[in-house]
């Protein structure tokens, strides 16, 4: 291919949106999805997928912390001593999370109230640590940022998909901030009003998140055969 020969002849600076770098953005959405393929970040996928609203807040928070963490660690990659690198990564993540939390508490207390429970979950989110260790430590800040965005998005869409299933079947409605609950089914369908339908309370409990993630993995693998391991 002609483009390859050109880059081989003059090893110029790679553009931020070269084919290789774009793969950093798109790969985590499917082929190397952090939750369904790498099986990282499962803990928070179980804990906060009861409501779509919470999943959105968590995804945004993870996106922010991931970009910040990846870029900062990538900038420091040449001065971090190998033996304490995990601690350094943890300090970077934890500081970012605390600063975000403090700023929200001061300027947007209502969001902070919703987020407060999840702050601890962001610090321990294995995806963030995983990307810092696997990618940011060995790459320049630009690609590290793309990698962060890609992985945060891959995390976010699984979270949203699971939350959608769980909230619709568990609560029979989706609650939006400012709007309140939007119900899909007519009230008369519910058992309490003499109908035939009952919300599935099992959906609200954590095990159903695992089963929902399992179903997503099943669908993904039957669609994308390259993910199936040969043994």
């Amino acid at each position, binding site marked *: 291919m002609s483009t390859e020969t050109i880059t081989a002849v003059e090893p110029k600076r790679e553009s931020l949106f070269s084919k290789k770098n774009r793969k950093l953005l798109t790969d985590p959405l499917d082929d190397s999805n952090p939750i369904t393929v790498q099986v990282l970040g499962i803990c928070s996928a179980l804990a906060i997928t009861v409501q779509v609203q919470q999943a959105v807040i968590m995804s945004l928070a993870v996106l922010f912390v991931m970009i910040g963490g990846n870029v900062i660690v990538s900038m420091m990659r040449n001065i*971090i*001593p*190998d033996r*304490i690198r995990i601690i*350094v990564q943890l300090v970077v993540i934890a500081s970012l999370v605390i600063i975000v939390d403090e700023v929200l508490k001061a300027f947007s*207390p209502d969001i902070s109230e919703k987020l*407060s429970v999840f702050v601890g979950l962001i610090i321990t989110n294995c995806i963030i640590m995983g990307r810092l260790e696997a990618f940011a430590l060995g790459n320049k800040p630009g690609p590290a940022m793309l990698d962060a965005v890609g992985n945060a998005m891959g995390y976010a869409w699984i979270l949203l998909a699971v939350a959608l299933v769980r909230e619709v079947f568990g609560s029979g409605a989706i609650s939006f901030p400012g709007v309140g609950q939007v119900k899909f089914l007519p009230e008369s369908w519910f058992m309490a009003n003499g109908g035939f339908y009952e919300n599935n*309370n099992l959906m*609200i409990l954590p095990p159903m998140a695992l089963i929902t993630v399992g179903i997503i993995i099943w669908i993904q693998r039957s669609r994308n055969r390259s993910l199936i391991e040969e043994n």
Partner: protein
Amino acid sequence: MAFNKNSNGYTFLFAILMVVLVGAILAFTSLSLKPLQKANAAEKKMMNILGAIGVPSERGAVEAKFMDFVKERVSIDSDGRKVDSRTGAVDATDSDDPFNIDVKKDYRSKAAASELNFPLFVCNKEGQDLYVVPVVGNGLWGPIWGFVALESDMETIYGAVFNHKTETPGLGAEIKEGFFQAPFKGKKISKVSPHFAVVKGGAPTTEYSVDGITGGTITSKGVGEMVDRTMAIYLKYFQSAPKAQK
């Protein structure tokens, strides 16, 4: 590279510098944002007190409304004796102001009740005196709290708001929803123990109890327990205090 980044000396130096730097950044952030955070928390408390007497309010316009409705802030000791009282604007620096008593902190502190003071907010809405009592307790996963407003007979519940930190969404977390809080209105605080109870979801209720949340039994019980325990202290004050004029 000019230095060996894996030598012991460098590792120690890096760790020390990192800790100092990060500590300084976090301390600075925390200190510079503290006044704003405190103001937000005070505002939220006023909103909750107004919420218990059924007055809607929103951030930014709370304080004036709070002044309109809350006539007096009283603190009492565990024997029901009046300790202190304030009227007029809330002074955030006055640690004796009953508004500034942190009941959540007191509850966690495990200090004996006799060492603590308990705040009571006397409100006036449409000519009727209302008494707002803050309650704190434990849910299934973490703290729960709220405000219960009593009518001028100091017995009938006028309204209640509850909130929680980490209860299960869809189950225990529902205590902050209207359908759970509405049935409190019109119920009574019993003069004899148990003063109040939240019964298992669907079980029959009496004058002194409300229906809990199905699947949120432990959180519901926590609400009942905190109202019961707190009212035991305030009842002593109510029984000795002169009945307010209607």
